[in-house]
């Protein structure tokens, strides 16, 4: 009843985002490396798969990496939980608005000495503020 009278407290979403970051740090605060393809040239060579796309690696922290049950064929799977605060700051530099779609378009997560393809992205949002990104990546 009191909540209904007061409505949403301004900045409450920011507080929850900070809490999520603190939670990630408290469980290890790992750093993950995401591999991002540079824009394609769009010419015939790139359309025919003749030109390997250049890529850059970016480190994101705090993060938590959790091993998931492997695929039926034995390929390893992981879940990566990323701080929305950190990720949005990086995405802003690239002029990205839709971070989830941006993550799905990346080459993947560097783990186990290779690039694991990002298969799905889910977003935890509280009070209109994105707090955590959950990536599922597969070998």
């Amino acid at each position, binding site marked *: 009843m009191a909540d209904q009278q007061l409505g949403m407290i301004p900045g409450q979403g920011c507080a929850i985002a900070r809490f999520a970051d603190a939670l990630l740090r408290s469980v290890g605060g790992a750093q993950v490396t995401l591999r991002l393809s*540079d824009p394609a040239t*769009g010419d015939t060579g790139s359309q025919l798969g003749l030109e390997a796309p250049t890529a850059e690696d970016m480190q994101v922290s705090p993060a938590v990496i959790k091993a998931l049950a492997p695929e039926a064929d034995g390929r390893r799977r992981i879940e990566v939980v990323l701080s929305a605060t950190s990720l949005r700051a990086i995405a802003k530099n690239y002029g990205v608005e839709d971070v989830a779609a941006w993550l799905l378009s990346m080459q993947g997560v560097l783990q186990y000495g290779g690039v694991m393809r990002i298969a799905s992205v889910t977003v935890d949002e509280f009070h209109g503020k994105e707090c955590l990104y959950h990536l599922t990546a597969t070998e």
Partner: protein
Amino acid sequence: MQPTKDSFYVALRDRLVATDPSRTVTLDGATRPAIAVMENEPPSGAPLLCDTFYLHWGNARPASAPPANLMTIDCTVSYCTKGSVQNGSLDRGRDLAALDNDLLAICSPPQTPKNDYSSGSPVALGSTIFWTQPVLNAAKNTPPYVGREITITVFFYPEVNQS
């Protein structure tokens, strides 16, 4: 076989530019004609885009008994649309018809010279590839999306010393 796949794609792409120059898509940060070969695109978890023709290469087999060496390879063309937001997706059938029209237009005439693109620029191989006319089978309706998967059989002679 690769020159066949490349020549087929380039022919359809160039015809799409001529037929419907406004049908473009932004893939990997580059704006290009709205047609792509799945196996040439970066592997990612991103969903396929609407209003774009995706080519998937399938089975290859001899088209005739030896000693003739004519071969075939299947190409599935998939595309879908969800209409426009301002029309509440009610125009998705019309958009699908426009895609159908574009597909029929770019597949005709059903032949093109075969070129080797491995060096980056086309090198004529002195032969022609040809293909069956697309048959528009029943549309797949998965609201708000509607789309089709069409299989075209491409005929070609394998080149000596060509992959």
